């Protein structure tokens, strides 16, 4: 077993060697610009891009022409939301999204608010799911876009996308969904779910970094976007810039692999994830799963280990790569806003750990991690005044804390 063990596959995934293999020729002998229309180098690159476009489209139930390649999901989110807001400005100025969305969606909406748009940030229920009645109530005559992610990057909770799509369709509102975490783990289908725009990223599915896509529906309805970058008019005018041919080839190959292997892989990862969860729940007291287990990605586990601060836990797990919702590990020095939206108190958010399993994790690794977590949590609780107080029967919520 090689260490450190990587269990942070929501942050990024290692590239599948088969993906790298497919990409390599496009850096050297097949280096052409896909926009070069008058020689074989260009034709070769274009052909590779079109093959990849089909591979991406096939995985999500789209047609190849509906795939716009971008630099990643952040760009796709920006292009979708800003592009719709600008294109449909005469129709309306109201956008609905959810408090637990990725920052690429939330901060894009915040910027649009500065430019006169109105944005509704829907709360989520205790388990992290959107309340569909609240969504229905939020839609107005001026609503032009609903943006709800497929699966959350911290807690892996899968939103009721088909129901949201049906509501959006019925009310004549465009529906954008960030599928970055879901793609390749669970079935994503733009037709079944009435999705009009969808953001994808290659590096969360064993493809290369710096490559992503935006699905833009072409029929029923035909979605139009105002480009956010000016230039050569690539990607049907929606995203200018020379295509990253090797990256796109890798993205296509990564999608093709997921299409073939997803069912078996997701079942295997769910089994490993459940073993990890069951062992931690059995061997430690005062641990809590954050978010719904019933509506969740197969490879995600997010747990709070009460009385043990997350960063100190990560420090103890020095041969394991996971991440924490603790303030100390975030750039903003605030605990996770996703957990906060679920109603998890700050004191428990500080103790949370996200485990993200992936294609290359083995049962042996997951067992090892479970044992290490138990060991480190136990050790740190011996150091924790809160654990001591809780064991003495003190209600920590009733203590007058001397805050700084």
């Amino acid at each position: 077993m090689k260490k450190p063990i990587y269990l942070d596959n929501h942050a990024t995934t290692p590239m599948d060697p088969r993906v790298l293999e497919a990409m390599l020729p496009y850096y050297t002998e097949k280096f052409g610009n896909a926009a070069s229309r008058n020689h074989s180098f260009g034709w070769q690159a274009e052909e590779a891009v079109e093959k990849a476009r089909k591979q991406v489209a096939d995985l999500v139930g789209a047609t190849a022409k509906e795939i716009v390649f971008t630099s990643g999901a952040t760009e796709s989110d920006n292009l979708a939301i800003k592009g719709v807001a600008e294109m449909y400005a005469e129709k309306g100025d109201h956008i609905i999204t959810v408090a637990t969305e990725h920052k690429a969606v939330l901060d894009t909406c915040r910027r649009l608010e500065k430019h006169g748009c109105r944005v509704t940030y829907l709360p989520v229920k205790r388990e992290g799911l959107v309340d569909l009645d609240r969504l229905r109530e939020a839609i107005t005559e001026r609503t032009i876009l609903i943006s709800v992610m497929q699966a959350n990057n911290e807690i892996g909770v899968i939103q009721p996308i088909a129901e949201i799509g049906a509501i959006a369709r019925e009310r004549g509102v465009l529906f954008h969904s960030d599928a970055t975490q879901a793609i390749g783990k669970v079935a994503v289908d733009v037709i079944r779910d009435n999705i009009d725009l969808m953001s994808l990223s290659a590096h969360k599915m064993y493809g290369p970094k710096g490559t992503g896509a935006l699905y833009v529906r072409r029929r029923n309805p035909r979605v139009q976007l105002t480009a956010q970058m000016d230039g050569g008019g690539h990607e049907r005018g929606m995203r200018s810039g020379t295509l990253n041919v090797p990256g796109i080839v890798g993205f296509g190959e990564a999608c093709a692999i997921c299409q073939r292997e997803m069912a078996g892989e997701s079942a295997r990862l769910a089994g490993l994830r459940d073993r990890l969860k069951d062992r931690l729940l059995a061997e430690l007291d005062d641990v809590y799963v954050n978010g719904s287990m019933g509506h969740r990605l197969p490879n995600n586990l997010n747990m709070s280990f009460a009385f043990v601060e997350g960063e100190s836990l990560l420090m103890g797990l020095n041969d394991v790569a996971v991440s924490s919702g603790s303030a100390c590990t975030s750039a903003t020095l605030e605990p996770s806003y996703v957990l906060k939206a679920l109603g998890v108190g700050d004191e428990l958010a500080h103790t949370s750990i996200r485990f993200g399993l992936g294609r290359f994790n083995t049962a042996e690794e997951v067992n090892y991690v479970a044992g290490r977590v138990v060991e480190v949590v136990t050790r740190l609780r011996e150091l924790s005044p809160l654990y001591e107080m809780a064991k003495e029967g003190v209600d920590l919520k009733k203590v007058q804390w001397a805050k700084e």
Partner: protein
Amino acid sequence: MYSDKVLDHYANPRNVGALDKSDPSVGTGMVGAPECGDVMKLQIKVSGDSEVIVDAKFKTFGCGSAIASSSLATEWLKGRTIDEALEIRNTDIVNELSLPPVKIHCSVLAEDAIKAAIEDYRKKRSGRNDGG
């Protein structure tokens, strides 16, 4: 990311444990709050006549730097008089542990915990004197 001294205190924390809160020679300081991600409990046992700190214990909920700051504080407290203990500044802890700017609050908390423990001890003493 972490200095060797922080790693050492984290891996081998000194003086972890608890002293009897009801002992009149023991002062207890508890600072921070769970929702802020840091709680330090620091206790000192003081020899009555000399006012020398003969024992110090801590327990900390917090990041590695918070654990190291309080562990170091207990090491420094033992053998000092109360007045000497009050001279410990958070900057001394920052320098000793090479804490980065984002971790300075851990050292501040440790200084606050020392002061709170001494204050608690003094309150107990004066309370007893008033009563007796």
